[in-house]
């Protein structure tokens, strides 16, 4: 098992370097540079432009810039935002807990509903229940997130007034950040009603962000279950007279879960992409919105630093998935 883990970690290093090159090159391939964009209609004189270029090191050859950048990163320095003049890592660490909290809630919701729904659809294959579950999943998968989010806000916050429109907690509550996770911080604050307010603010964004992963997980579970249910050992277990619940829960589901766990891991990337739109609609102070703004402003340091940190997260999640995979299926460890 140790060798398996070390091997997986060893693979991360070249991937990380590859990502750093892509992140570095990507934002520079876009036309337009931050200095011109920052100046806007006003414009800058040629001298001032040259001055700023050299101040930010943009006048050096790209290779040299990249080497400096890589060197800084190895020392834990992700650079300073061109726009806000704050260290990229500080900004990331301030905003990331919000994205993480929302993503965890969304993936939990997607898994807790998606797997049972998929299993039931597979067991009752072809039934009305199966068809409606898969129909809803298809709609969920195809729904434009932005539109879906606004629709929910108009219905639940506007017409019914059940949930707040946006934000993480009611503005009445004010307490210092401890963990950055609003659910935990609101409990720690001890203010009555704070936790409830935090939960009510989480409901709509969680539903919106969970929609696509939920659809994917339900479909994946269903097809994996169908495959497993037709296997010989399931038939054998059934013919032995085991209770259907035991056959499905113990024999079939455990094996069907392997591709599902992979799917859930892959959804992390999808979640971060979805978070960009979800965060924008619900004024959720996470990294999604932060990244989009920086791309528009050509804030090189933030885009490349942010991409690298997000890619790092996804790699870690994938590593975790690989390890869980190894636990579920001992054959893979070799």
């Amino acid at each position, binding site marked *: 098992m140790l060798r398996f883990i070390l091997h997986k970690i060893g693979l991360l290093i070249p991937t990380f370097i590859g990502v750093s090159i892509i992140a570095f090159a990507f934002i520079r391939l876009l036309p337009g540079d931050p200095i011109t964009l920052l100046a806007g209609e006003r414009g800058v004189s040629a001298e001032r432009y040259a001055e700023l270029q050299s101040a930010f090191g943009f006048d050096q050859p790209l290779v040299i810039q990249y080497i400096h950048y890589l060197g800084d990163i190895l020392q834990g320095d992700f650079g300073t935002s*061109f726009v806000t*003049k*704050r260290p990229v890592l500080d900004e990331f660490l301030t905003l990331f807990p919000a994205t993480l909290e929302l993503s965890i809630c969304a993936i939990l919701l997607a898994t807790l509903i998606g797997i049972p729904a998929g299993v039931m659809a597979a067991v009752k294959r072809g039934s009305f229940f199966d068809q409606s579950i898969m129909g809803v999943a298809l709609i969920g998968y195809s729904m434009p997130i932005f539109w879906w989010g606004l629709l929910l806000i108009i219905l639940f916050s506007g017409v019914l007034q059940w949930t707040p429109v*946006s934000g993480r907690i009611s503005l009445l509550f004010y307490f210092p950040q401890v963990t950055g996770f609003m659910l935990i911080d609101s409990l720690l604050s001890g*203010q009555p009603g704070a936790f409830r307010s935090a939960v009510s603010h989480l409901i709509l964004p969680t539903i919106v962000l969970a929609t696509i992963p939920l659809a994917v997980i339900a479909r994946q579970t269903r097809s994996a279950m169908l495959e497993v249910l037709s296997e010989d050992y399931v038939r054998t277990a059934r013919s032995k007279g085991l209770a259907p619940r035991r056959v499905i829960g113990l024999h079939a589901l455990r094996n069907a879960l392997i591709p599902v766990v992979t799917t859930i891991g892959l959804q992390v990337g999808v979640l971060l992409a979805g978070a960009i739109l979800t965060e*924008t*609609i619900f004024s959720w102070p996470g990294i999604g919105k932060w990244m989009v703004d920086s791309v528009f402003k050509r804030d090189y340091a933030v885009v490349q630093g942010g991409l690298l940190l997000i890619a790092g997260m996804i790699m870690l999640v994938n590593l975790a998935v690989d390890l869980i995979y190894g636990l579920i299926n001992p054959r893979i460890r070799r």
Partner: protein
Amino acid sequence: MRNFRRLLASTMLLSVIAAGAHAKTLVYCSEGSPEGFDPALYTSGTTFDAASKTVYNRLVEFKIGTTETQPGLAESFEVSEDGKEYTFKLRPGVKFHSTDFFTPSRDLNADDVIFSFERQLDAENPFNQYVEGASWEYFNGMSMPDLIESIEKVDDMTVKFKLTRAEAPFVANLAMDFASIVSKEYADKLAEAGNESDLNQKPIGTGPFQFVAYQPDAVIRYKANPDYWNGKEKIDDLVFAITTDASVRQQKLMAGECHVIPYPNPADVASLKEDESITVMEQEGLNVGYLAYNTKVAPFDDAKVRKALNMAINKEAILDAVFQGAAQIAKNPIPPTMWSYNESVEDDAYDPEAAKKALEEAGVSDLSMKVWAMPVQRPYNPNARRMAELIQEDFSKVGVDVEIVSYEWGEYLEKSKAEDRDGAVLLGWTGDNGDPDNFLAVLLGCDAVGGSNRAQWCNDEFNALITKAKVGTQEERAKLYEEAQVVFKREAPWATIAHSVVYMPMSDKVSGYKMDPLGGHWFTGVDISE
């Protein structure tokens, strides 16, 4: 554990007490996060709303709701005979904010004023590079380094600015956000502790509101400055709830989660106006959207051709289709809310037949040209592509063939500066300081050719007028600018298209809000009923 419980109980009690007291809180759903809280470092209006208009004051202030200036931290000032020396007398007894992170030991004095400018002017100043990459963009953009020769402390309460040339707009510049006065005592204390960057994160000023806390992308909290020199504000707490999406801002206003929202979707304004609990204020923005011909390239070097094309543009149709009515037709290069706006100038009336004839008379036939459409939304032009298409259609009616081109925004700004540029370019401008010089010299002066003068237009008569208008009283200057607008209309380097209208929806509980023609959002003098 027992201690923790006790703490829990006492905080619960405290919050109950706090909820019992009737603090007046105004919630403003702002459109974005501030980049920081030192306004001199940045150029965006969002940052200025959050920093300079709440926390800080300037030597001279704009009278809110106008583009005129009034005394601020300086009680009065004197200008020397030659217009090159400005001596400011500071207001006595002005207190900097006392907060949990700073307690001032003295009132505002000349050192604070000098420090506020020196850090931007002098590369050797310890606070010149207190954050990485500080470039003092606005200070440089307004040519302050070339303009200011020196800043001197005459005595503790008197500061003298010596200029390299006479320049009347200088006073309006001092009312701009970058000229906010920061506390030198606070900066020194931060430097001692090695926390210089806090000057940009935890601001201390003299303004009507003091900073309490900021959670990035979520919320900014302020409370009224109890010692404000102009009297404590009527509201006790001011909250900026950052809400980037316009539809969501509207929902929050209707749900009572915020009291004032900026920048509604133009399409939603009608439904907001129908809501009885909501008031929608409106005002022309201090902006102009235009189509700039390249006056250096034939046949557009001929004013007759430009005039003819101007007559071919149906501006009413553009107002409806592009601005959804939220604009007014522009006839002058400066907006009507600005002093010296020449009411008597007559716009080129829409008349395709006359336009066709005028083109023939100018000897132009089978003309084909490019029209540049910006790739981004701006207040002065919410949809440049659509505008270009309408102009294309209008021009085709007078026999002019138009090809629409566009580039990425940064490239667009760069390429449109070229003196040999092929085509007329759609662009616009939002004023900085309410001074006509900030439109006419920046956009149409000879010095700006090859830069922000996209028409590449250098007219001796016009340029002499605006140069002369750089000195003198406002009355004298206004006369010269009015004349300059006549020359502009006669020569037609642009087709002036529109001044957009800005809407401010707010709860009917809010009173005393004044819209700022300069585009800022101020909460000075605002009240809210229970």
